[in-house]
């Protein structure tokens, strides 16, 4: 399977899993799928059998509500058994509603409150610098999440400590829970803001896993500046009636919608 095919497979898992669970953040899960596909199948040096390797790349899903897409990616990559996806959101599941490292193999940090991932990622990146390790730290944030001030505390630190082994990826779908990000609290000019805080900033098509992989693989330590990638995405990507619609932040497909979504994904 190429990366596009992997992404389709992960999206089908998301539709099936969320429908069965009867809840989930479908829009966010589908938005980030191509970014996770690029990371787990082409970029990160992590595999299930070297999971405890101190030299493994670190990935933090700061937008913890995108956990559905994360679990489906981890299942696709062999970190967790796919049967666990059927237990999503159930009592005592190994796939709870936000990532829990004590529960799910592959999860590094317990996220859910927004604005937590980037400070932790800075700590991990600084630990690598201090201890002479070569791993890279990747942090995936939602765009609305950048309204949390803690991100900008961390952004200053990333620059101050010259964390060129840190890569911030922003899932820029321009939607947050209630409405369009620019209507609730404007983020633009995002590129300029990130650059002003000291990042080497890139923009990419966040729904093209090949393009994402090519870009991320090129972001190597050496420039003494942290990296930020504004990944332009469509929330709910891949299913026409879910795409770019705030209603689908929390919704999951029901009834006929399930087959319709799967069919659309198979046709793409």
């Amino acid at each position, binding site marked *: 399977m190429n990366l596009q095919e992997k992404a389709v497979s992960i999206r089908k898992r998301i539709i099936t899993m969320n429908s069965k669970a009867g809840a989930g953040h479908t829009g966010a899960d589908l938005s980030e799928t191509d970014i996770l596909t690029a990371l787990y199948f082409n970029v990160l040096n992590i595999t299930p059998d070297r999971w405890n390797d101190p030299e493994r790349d670190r990935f933090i899903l700061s937008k913890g509500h995108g956990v559905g897409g994360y679990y489906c990616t981890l299942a696709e990559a062999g970190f967790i058994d796919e049967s666990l996806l059927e237990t999503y959101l159930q009592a005592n599941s190994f796939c709870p509603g936000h990532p829990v490292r004590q529960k799910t193999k592959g999860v590094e940090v317990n996220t859910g409150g927004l604005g*937590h991932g*980037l*400070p*932790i990622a*800075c700590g991990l990146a600084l630990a690598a610098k201090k201890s002479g390790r070569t791993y890279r730290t990747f942090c995936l944030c939602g765009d609305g999440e950048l309204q949390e001030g803690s991100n900008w505390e961390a952004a200053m630190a990333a620059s101050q*400590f010259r964390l060129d082994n840190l890569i911030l990826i922003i899932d820029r779908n321009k939607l947050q829970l209630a409405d369009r990000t620019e209507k609730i609290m404007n983020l633009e000019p995002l590129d300029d803001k990130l650059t002003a805080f000291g990042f080497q900033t890139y923009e990419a098509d966040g729904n093209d896993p090949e393009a994402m992989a090519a870009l991320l693989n090129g972001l190597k330590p050496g420039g003494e500046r942290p990296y930020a990638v504004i990944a332009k995405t469509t929330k709910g990507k891949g299913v026409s009636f879910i795409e770019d619609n705030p209603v689908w932040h929390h919704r999951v497909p029901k009834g006929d919608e399930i087959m319709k979504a799967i069919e659309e994904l198979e046709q793409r």
Partner: protein
Amino acid sequence: MKDSRDAMIASFISAVENGVELMVVVSDSTSTSKIQPFAERFPERIVNVGIAEQNLVGMAAGLALGGYVVATANASPFLVNRSAEQVRNDVAYTDTNVKMMGLNPGFAYGSLGPTHHSLEDISMMRSLGGVKIYTPIDPEGTAEAVTHVLKSEGPAYIRIDSGLFQNIRRPDGVLRVTAPVRLSEGNDVTILGMGTSSHAVKEAAEILSRAGVHADAWGIPSIRPLRNEELLESIGNTGKVMSVEAHSVHGGLGSLVSEWIADKGIRARLVRLGVPEGLFAPASPRPAIEAAFNLDTDGIVKKVHEFLGASY
């Protein structure tokens, strides 16, 4: 008379000398933590994140996940209140190896006022899963607690007073991190002092003794875990217990004692000295605040006489 923060720093230095991969994270103020001797010795082991407490705790968690034993060292009010969610999610819930030094707690900042007082730290930490909580009573106990947590796994909070205190001599000469320290023996009333409040409790017990009131007085150096068997026995014996803490009466030592009494069905009355319901402490010098809430020696003596004279 010594400052417990100096003891903390000496323990940091000693830990690194003994092979602990320690990283100390501070936010701007290096004088709050008196970190200079450590910074001069091990400049590569100190991270200053600036005035950014959320990032202080988040980065501490990340450094811990990257393999370090991490100590944060900043003023308790800003740690506990400003970065409450980071403490809960990134340290307690994620279970990272972060040791939080809550510096200058209670009314240590005196006249700087309620923005700088820390009356909720124990209450907040107690309500979190997985965080061990220490309240050393003197510089020696601080050194012992810091050394202990740096050698143990998992999240911990240590309440470290910036006041100047003597070391309280342990009756058996043995330092203990999680066991109460007996300050005086008696059968009339049990008095428990949290952390450095133990010093006023000890003096009060001596004054009371001269007046014929014999208090079973204890210094409490740890909240969780705490070996409380002797305390329960004492409370059962005297039937009267007083808690003394530079903290809100909600969620600190007084609340803990009330829970023991209720949970175990002990027949005892409890008087909680601390900052009463619904109040901030005033912006006044520390001794004035302690006097206002009967947390100084005279206040404790007065309150014990009232307690024993009261009929219920």
